[in-house]
């Protein structure tokens, strides 16, 4: 089994299922029709409701959801072997994830462009709508925790990447000035921006910025607070813009390298059902897989993105499949790429790291863990952590090796590593910025009931600096613990919970409003997902968290409490949902 074959099979599966499964959902479940006017025409106001070409919406959707997420999850999932994760990335994506995105988009379109939160409030219960603020708020805190951890881990291992990130930030600020202040012609400004980015990367090769993990934690904290307080066109927008070019470049060389290498997979296809992964505990593939691979297969954020602005700008209903269903596939494709890279080169990278460690200390202080292809499941996570090759670093190393093994080997490996690292960290840094802004907003909405009952407290908590500090502080506090295999699944759990609720909402919409014979195509994945996520959270809280609490009680309990609150909201949701279905059946 080679990387080339996998890429081609992946491509065929996505495209094939798009035209069969996807089209069937469009035709028979949603019954999308060009005869029905979309809100962008019917409610046209020149402000938010403006019809846009589907390519533009696709681009916007893709840019919003592409990032560091699709890369990290699959790297962790390698402990099951390369096949199980890949199957989830393929079939989980097509049968559940893309359906989730598409239903959120179309339900919103049919609801005059209102968000999936509004649809949930209307179809299920007001409590469910409010729950969105709560879950999203905690989700954002966990995003900060997980992503700050990822960034710092990369920075510590390869200080060139931290240098590149800092210089790229400066480049982005300059680009922002060019576009928004100097009002320079956009294509020219773009070229300048890309050149600046290249300079940034080049500078990092001889001007790295090494620092310890804790230092980066503090730096990131300060960064979040400042970045979320300045106008968006200073840093956020221009960096977002530059990131997309990094993305294109990364995908291009990754794709080419994977296709051309014809590399056989080193890692085993399947190991055991419950290898040691999260929190050092045996992790059963079901129900834990959504906690490991989120974006790339299924992500709750997408429902908000789809029903936020895209639904108000959809020109005709049949564009929806391309925008909602199709954009998701590109993410899946990214994940496939990473699985190929790690599957094909991971073992080599590990062996090299072993050798390097042994050479560095003649009498190795820590004897190398005997990771062979037989005990892969049990030792993959332990070994990679011990070798400072946790998921983000693993991605960078394997990606670099993959490119080096192809005709693109003329690109110096160091540069490829920096680019890959920059890709992850640049997207992650932008995410940290945006999460803080939205978390502020969620916090204010969550605390609204306090306005009349506890005015003083309300005033203090919703002050813009406090509201900014709270999520940032908790997030960084959690990230301080360095427990990546706890932080990442917590973030995934919250994300998947939103996805489950959104998909259930989509299914409710289909069941209630569309009298279709094929409602099962929406309802079945919704229930499968909901059950899986609920069981996963319960398992996580009862099996994995105790170990984490023992290791770091402060952070451990914080996470446990957050998970508990989310579980409670989940229970309330399902109660409301079932009540709603019962009422629907009686009516």
């Amino acid at each position, binding site marked *: 089994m080679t990387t080339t074959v996998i890429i081609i099979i992946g491509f065929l599966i996505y495209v094939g299922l798009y035209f069969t499964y996807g089209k069937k959902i469009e035709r028979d479940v949603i019954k999308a029709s060009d005869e029905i006017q979309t809100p962008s025409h019917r409610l046209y106001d020149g402000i938010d409701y403006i019809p846009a070409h589907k390519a533009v919406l696709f681009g916007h959707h893709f840019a919003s959801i592409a990032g560091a997420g699709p890369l990290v999850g699959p790297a962790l999932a390698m402990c099951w072997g390369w096949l199980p994760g890949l199957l989830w990335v393929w079939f989980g994506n097509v049968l559940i994830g893309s359906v989730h995105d598409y239903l959120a988009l179309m339900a919103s379109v049919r609801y005059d462009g209102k968000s999936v939160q509004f649809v949930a409030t209307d179809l299920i219960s007001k409590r469910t709508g409010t729950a969105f603020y709560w879950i999203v708020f905690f989700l954002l805190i966990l995003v900060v925790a997980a992503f700050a951890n990822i960034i710092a881990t990369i920075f510590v291992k390869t200080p060139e990447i931290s240098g590149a990130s800092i210089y790229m930030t400066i480049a982005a600020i300059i680009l922002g000035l060019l576009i928004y202040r100097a009002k320079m012609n956009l294509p020219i400004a773009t070229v300048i921006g890309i050149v600046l980015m290249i300079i940034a990367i080049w500078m990092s090769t001889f001007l790295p910025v090494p620092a310890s993990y804790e230092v980066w934690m503090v730096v990131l904290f300060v960064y979040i607070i400042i970045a979320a307080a300045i106008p968006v066109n200073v840093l956020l927008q221009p960096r977002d813009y530059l990131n997309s070019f990094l993305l294109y470049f990364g995908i291009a060389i990754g794709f080419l390298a994977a296709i051309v290498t014809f590399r056989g997979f080193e890692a085993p296809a399947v190991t055991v059902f419950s290898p040691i992964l999260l929190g050092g505990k045996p992790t059963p593939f079901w129900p834990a897989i959504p906690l490991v691979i989120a*974006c790339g297969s299924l992500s709750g954020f997408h429902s908000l993105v789809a029903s936020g602005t895209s639904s108000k700008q959809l020109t005709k209903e049949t564009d929806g499949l391309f925008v909602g269903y199709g954009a998701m596939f590109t993410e899946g494709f990214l994940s496939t790429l990473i699985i190929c890279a790690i599957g094909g080169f991971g073992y080599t990278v590990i062996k090299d790291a072993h050798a390097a460690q042994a050479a560095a200390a003649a009498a190795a202080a820590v004897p190398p863990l005997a990771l062979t292809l037989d005990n892969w499941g049990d030792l993959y996570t332990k070994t990679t952590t011990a070798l400072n090759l946790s998921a983000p670093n693993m991605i960078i190393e394997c990606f670099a090796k993959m490119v080096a093994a192809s005709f693109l080997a003329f690109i110096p490996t160091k540069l490829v590593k920096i680019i890959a690292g920059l890709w992850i960290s640049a997207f992650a840094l932008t995410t940290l910025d945006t999460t803080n802004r939205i978390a502020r907003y969620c916090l204010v909405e969550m605390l609204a009931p306090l306005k009349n009952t506890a005015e003083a407290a309300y005033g203090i908590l919703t002050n813009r600096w406090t509201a900014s500090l709270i999520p940032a502080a908790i997030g960084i506090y959690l990230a301080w613990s360095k427990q990546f295999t706890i932080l990442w699944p917590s973030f995934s759990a919250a994300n998947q919970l939103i996805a489950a609720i959104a998909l259930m909402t989509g299914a409710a919409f289909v069941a209630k409003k569309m009298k279709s014979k094929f409602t099962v195509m929406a309802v079945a994945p919704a229930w499968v997902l909901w059950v899986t996520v609920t069981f996963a959270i319960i398992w996580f809280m009862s099996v994995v968290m105790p170990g984490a609490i023992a290791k770091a009680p402060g952070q451990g309990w914080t996470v446990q409490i957050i998970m508990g609150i989310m579980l409670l909201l989940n229970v309330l949701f399902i109660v409301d949902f079932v009540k709603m279905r019962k009422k629907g059946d009686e009516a």
Partner: protein
Amino acid sequence: MGTSLFDHIGRLFAHIGTAHRENVIALTSVELNELENIFALLLLGSFVGFPAPPTFLSVELLPFMEREMAVLHQRAGDASDMLAEMVGTLGID
């Protein structure tokens, strides 16, 4: 066959270009709408009891503020449903 392929690729790049431009200004557009909303609120606030500029200011400027009134109207309806719009515009992950 050849020309239509070139056409396709040309159109593809045109679309990518447009998509990029739209991304670059997405947030600015949102900011613009909000500023117009604020401007309208400031001027029309007196109608709903806000402290406001001397009424005649509002009255004199109103004939020029068709678009701002439309934004005000639309925002008033949407104000309670902004989470998804914010996430969609800012883009997470």
